[in-house]
Structure formats: structure tokens, C-alpha cells
């Protein structure tokens, strides 16, 4: 019996293709937008998660600013004047304190040095020069494509390791090992080139593909100790707990600064919570809007079905005259709107995959469409069809057969 209804519903959809398409349009757009938006959000989250994974869960960052984190209500202090909470900058003493803290196996500062870089193509504008130490590749879990990272032996030499973009921008050669560029009037010899760093939209990490890494000592001397260290990276020993090391680091830093450093010491996960939260909020917001469009699509189906019931009064009359029960008429119309919205949902999914393809091709976004979302979207669209198809179906089922037969 149900398949007879299915057929009747399908016949009617097939018979009025244009009308069916317009009916489905709302659902198509709704489903496509829900899947795409959730996919974009999911994609970004996965990349951030991937980055954390890549860096290692237990990477500790020390920054000279307290991150206002809305997650814990106690530490949230929105009344502060911006900048007031910013602690003293990281200095040489801090760097030493961190590297000598018990339980820290590796640490590296990231010091920004201002100034112009000149290579084969003249000035290199998009990049930045970072002073650091030999622990950096290990801390970032990043291997070098060519050459090697400078060791502690060459901390006082003018050597450099480049990110891929910096390498391409500075030199004509594919592998510019041994070539040199000018910075602060001094020649720097390229010793190594990093593999491509994975970049993440909305991440707080700088894009290291554009960076030029030089020994921290050289950076400090070039800038006459004025270059700000914006971040310290540290990795706790394998047997140590990250939280214990963080506590120890805090104490050590407080001692350096006479009790109150205000430096933020966080593990990698915490570091990304802020952007994660914003992203979550955005995803929910847009998904909410998309859900509203699904709702509107459902109302569209209901309207078209209502009109269709009025238009097909005669058909209802005939069906009743030859023995269709109210229930059968009702099932037919509910199944019909269910079919409509399910097809709409499937088309919407296809559209979402197309949008996904376009986004991957023409933007830096990498939406991740999970099968759960696809299944959910199909189920929701079917549900909407059945839900919003009920009112017109009831209207159709309880028509007086004689009246319905008489109408043309």
C-alpha cells in the first residue's frame, strides 16, 4: 500500500516539474546553505585542531599580554582600559628564566626585528624577521625542506632560515642555499628553508611561511636590544605534566618581575580557545540563519501544496469517488510534499558539494562536509516536508467528494 502512495506522489511531482522545482527551491537553498556554513566552520575548526595536533598538545606559549578569556567568568575583566592589563614585555631575563625552569626541555623566543630586507627582487615587504634559537623547529614540529636550521654554534653569525614564501620572494632560485640577502646593512647567508607551514584562517599564529629566522643574539644586537620578544615557546619534558610546568614557569617569571609579571603562560589548546569560541559563535549564528531559510522553505512548500490542493480539487473528487479513503488522500499529499522536500534536500546537498568545490578552488577555505550533516540535512528536509505537508493534506482529505467532483 505505501508504495502505491509513493507512486501517486511521485506521479504528481513528475507531472508538474516546474511547479515542483519552485516548491523545492526554498529547501534547496536552505539545505545547501546549512551544509556549506557548517562545513566551512567545521573545516576551520579541523585545521585549528590539526595545527594544535601538529604543534603538540603540550606546547607552552608565554606572551606578554594577558588574554582576556571569556570562558572563565572569574578572569573576565571587560572594565579594564585596553592595554592596562598588558604586562611588561618579555626580556632577556625572562628568556633565561624560562629556559632554565625545571622540566622545560626546549624553549625558543620569537623576537621581531624591524627593518627592510633586500634580496634578488629588491625589497621584501610582506615578510618579517624573527630572532630565535635552534630549538624552534622541534617546538613547531616543523622539518626543513633544504639545508639545516642554525645550531647554537652559529648564534653570533649572520645566518638565516627562510619560510617558503620568503624564499620565493627573495630569490630567483628554487633552492637558494648559500645565497645571501641584506638586512640592516649586513649580509645574511641562507642556511635552510622550511617546509610549507600549514596556515589556519582566524588563527593567532603568524604565518611563518613569510618569516625569515635569524639567531636571536644577532637580532638583539642588530636592534640594540630594542626588538620585542612577542612570544616564548617552551616544551615540557615528556614525564612532566604541562600544567605543573606552567605553574612553575609562572612562579619563575613572577620572581623575575618582582612578584607580578602578568605574563600569560598557556598551553597550545588554551591559546586557541578564543578564536575557537568566536568561530563557534559565528558558525552557530550563520547556521541559525540558514535554519531560518529552511523554515521559510518549509512554509514555501506548505503554500504551494495548499494552492495545489485547491487546483487539484477535481482530482481529489475522482480519487474519492473510486474509493480512496480520507487517510489515503492524506497520505498521498503528505508523501508528495515529503518527496518534494527530500528531492529538494538532495539537490541542496549536491549544491553544497558544488559550493564546497568552488570554495576550495577559489578561496583559501577548506570546508569539511561531514556525512552526519548530510544525513541530518536530508532528514530535516524530509521532516519539514512531512510537517508542512500535513496542513494541506488534511485540507485535501476532508473535502466533500461531491463538491470536489463538481469543481473544475
Amino acid at each position: 500500500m505505501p508504495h502505491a502512495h509513493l507512486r501517486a506522489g511521485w506521479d504528481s511531482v513528475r507531472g508538474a516539474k516546474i511547479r515542483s522545482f519552485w516548491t523545492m527551491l526554498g529547501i534547496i537553498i536552505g539545505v545547501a546553505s546549512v551544509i556549506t556554513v557548517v562545513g566551512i566552520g567545521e573545516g576551520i575548526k579541523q585545521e585549528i585542531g590539526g595545527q594544535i595536533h601538529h604543534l603538540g598538545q603540550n606546547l607552552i606559549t608565554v606572551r606578554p599580554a594577558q588574554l582576556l578569556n571569556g570562558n572563565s567568568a572569574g578572569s573576565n575583566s571587560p572594565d579594564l582600559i585596553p592595554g592596562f592589563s598588558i604586562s611588561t614585555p618579555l626580556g632577556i631575563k625572562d628568556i633565561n628564566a624560562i629556559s632554565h625552569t625545571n622540566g622545560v626541555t626546549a624553549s625558543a623566543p620569537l623576537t621581531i626585528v624591524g627593518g627592510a630586507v633586500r634580496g634578488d627582487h629588491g625589497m621584501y615587504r610582506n615578510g618579517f624577521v624573527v630572532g630565535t634559537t635552534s630549538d624552534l623547529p622541534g617546538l613547531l614540529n616543523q622539518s626543513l625542506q633544504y639545508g639545516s636550521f642554525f645550531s647554537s654554534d652559529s648564534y653570533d653569525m649572520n645566518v638565516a632560515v627562510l619560510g617558503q614564501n620568503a624564499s620565493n620572494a627573495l630569490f630567483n632560485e628554487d633552492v637558494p642555499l648559500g645565497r645571501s640577502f641584506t638586512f640592516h646593512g649586513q649580509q645574511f647567508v641562507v642556511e635552510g628553508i622550511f617546509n610549507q607551514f600549514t596556515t589556519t584562517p582566524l588563527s593567532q599564529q603568524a604565518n611563518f611561511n613569510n618569516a625569515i629566522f635569524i639567531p636571536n643574539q644577532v637580532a638583539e644586537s642588530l636592534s640594540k636590544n630594542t626588538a620585542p620578544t612577542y612570544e616564548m615557546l617552551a616544551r615540557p619534558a615528556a614525564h612532566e605534566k604541562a600544567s605543573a610546568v606552567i605553574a612553575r614557569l609562572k612562579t619563575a617569571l613572577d620572581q623575575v618581575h618582582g612578584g607580578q609579571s602578568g605574563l600569560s603562560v598557556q598551553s597550545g589548546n588554551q591559546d586557541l580557545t578564543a578564536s575557537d569560541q568566536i568561530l563557534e559563535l559565528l558558525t552557530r549564528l550563520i547556521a541559525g540563519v540558514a535554519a531560518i531559510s529552511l523554515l521559510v522553505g518549509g512554509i514555501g512548500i506548505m503554500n504551494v501544496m495548499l494552492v495545489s490542493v485547491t487546483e487539484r480539487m477535481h482530482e481529489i473528487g475522482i480519487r474519492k469517488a473510486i474509493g480512496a479513503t480520507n487517510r489515503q488522500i492524506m497520505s498521498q499529499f503528505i508523501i508528495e510534499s515529503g518527496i518534494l522536500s527530500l528531492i529538494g534536500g538532495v539537490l541542496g546537498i549536491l549544491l553544497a558539494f558544488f559550493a564546497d568545490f568552488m570554495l576550495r578552488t577559489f578561496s583559501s577555505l577548506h570546508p569539511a562536509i561531514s556525512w552526519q550533516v548530510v544525513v541530518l540535512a536530508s532528514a530535516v528536509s524530509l521532516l519539514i516536508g512531512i510537517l508542512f505537508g500535513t496542513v494541506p493534506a488534511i485540507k485535501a482529505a476532508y473535502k466533500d467528494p461531491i463538491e470536489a467532483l463538481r469543481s473544475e
Partner: protein
Amino acid sequence: MALIELQDVSKLYGFGDATTLALDEVDLTITKGEFVAVMGPSGSGKSTLMNLIGLLDRPSHGDYRLDNKAVARLKTDQAAKIRRDTIGFILQSFNFLPRLTVLENVALPLAYKGVSLSRRTKLASQMLERVGVQNREYFFPSQLSGGQAQCAAIARALVNNPKIIIADEPTGNLDSSGSRLVMELLSDIHKLGNTVLFVTHNPELTRFATRVVYMHDGTIIHDEQTALGQVAPKARKVLYTIPATSEEDDLEGVSVMMKAFPHKEAPPPKRKKATDKSTRRKKRSVSRRKKAS
């Protein structure tokens, strides 16, 4: 054996002042195997009677026993099931679903019964073969001639093997050859033992019936048995008592009707599809009013 028993059946439409009495305490008993023609002017309650017998409608008062079962107060879904299993409807304007093929249309009652697709296609095809339009089964209803369409409609009415065939003006939209085709088919069905009821305006068609029921203003005014193959005597009289309007009347048009009803406003023009039918009706109603005055 009484198949259809109506006792004091009345049907009212509307409320209060606007109430119209479509059927007025009708008693009618039809036994199995009868071929009943129902005649009478428009608005005499023929269609209402057919709808009540066919369980498309419920009587306002009175009892209706169909096959010894009280069916006057059935719920709509129960009525639909009885309608599906025991009654075959043939309607004036064929009433096919235009987007389904003839075969699909004929198979539709079986679908509501829950017969499998292959079986109902087979049954519908056999039925179309019986009525002689099997070569049109994959056509759409709009591609059939009137006679063929009505034959297919008869096939649809028969496909469930019903006890009663109800045909409301089955020849109303057909030319004479189509009418004969349809009536001969109905006659064949009757000869196989089915009970057939049909409404007609054409006295000639009482030739096929075994019994003629005349209705007027919601009551049965005359009920007679007739021999097969003969036009019922009373029907013949009805045929000859219809005064043909003269050419002058035709020319005068509406003013004739005005004369017939001098104390009333001119009736609003009726909207009818088939022009030949509307003129025929008009003539008849004019004659009736003349008689009344």
C-alpha cells in the same frame, strides 16, 4: 433479493431560509440484476439520489440498507471502503486523472484496494480489452474520443468487480454513436448479472433498461418495469410531451422565459459547458414553466 433499500430518505442542503430539499422521503428498493434508468428534469434530485446510493453522500433523514447492511450513518472512511469494493461510478465527464495513462487510471481503484502493481496492471488491461479500448491503454485520457473515454471509464468502474454500477448521465457528453457504444456496453455488463443504475435525459435509452424511475422535485413520481429493447411507455410520453420551441421562440430568446414567468425576475444566465446540452435544458425548463403556469 433487495440489494438497495431506501426508506424515507431525505436530503437537505443549506441552512435556515436557504434550505433546499433535494430528496423528499424517497422509498426505493432495487433488487440484484436490475437495470434501472432514472429520468427527470434537472434539479429533480437524480444526481443526489445517485450520490446517496453510491455512498458519496449521507442522507439527512431515513434509512439506507445496502446489501442488508445499514450504511446511512457510516463514517467517511468506511463509506469509502464500501464504495471502493461494491460500487463502480461512471460520471458524465469521464473524470480521469489527466496526467496518468488510461491504463493507470483504470488501475487506480485497485491501487486503493492494495493490489500489487503488476496484478492491477494486468487486471486493468483485461478490463480495457473487455470494453474494447485496449489498443489505447498507454494513451493519455485527453487523446481518446468521447466514446472511448467513457468505455475506459466503464472499465475503471468495473475493475473492482463491483455489485452495483452507477452511471450519472453516462451519455451526456457523447454523440449518438458514442452513446450507443456506451449503452451497449452497459447492457452487456447487465447481462452478466450486474446491477446497473443510470441517469439519463434521453427517453430512447430506456430501451436498455428493465425499470424506469421518474423523479420530480425530489420525489419518485412514477416507477415502472419495462421490457428490454422497448422504450418505456411513459418515457415515450415524456418525449412527446416536450413541446418543441418554434423558430419564433428561438428568435425571441430570453423574452419567452420572461413571458413564462411574468411575476418573477429573469433567472440569472446559467453557465454551462456544452452548448447543445444547455439549449436542450433551457427548452425543457421553459416548457416546464409553461406547464406550471
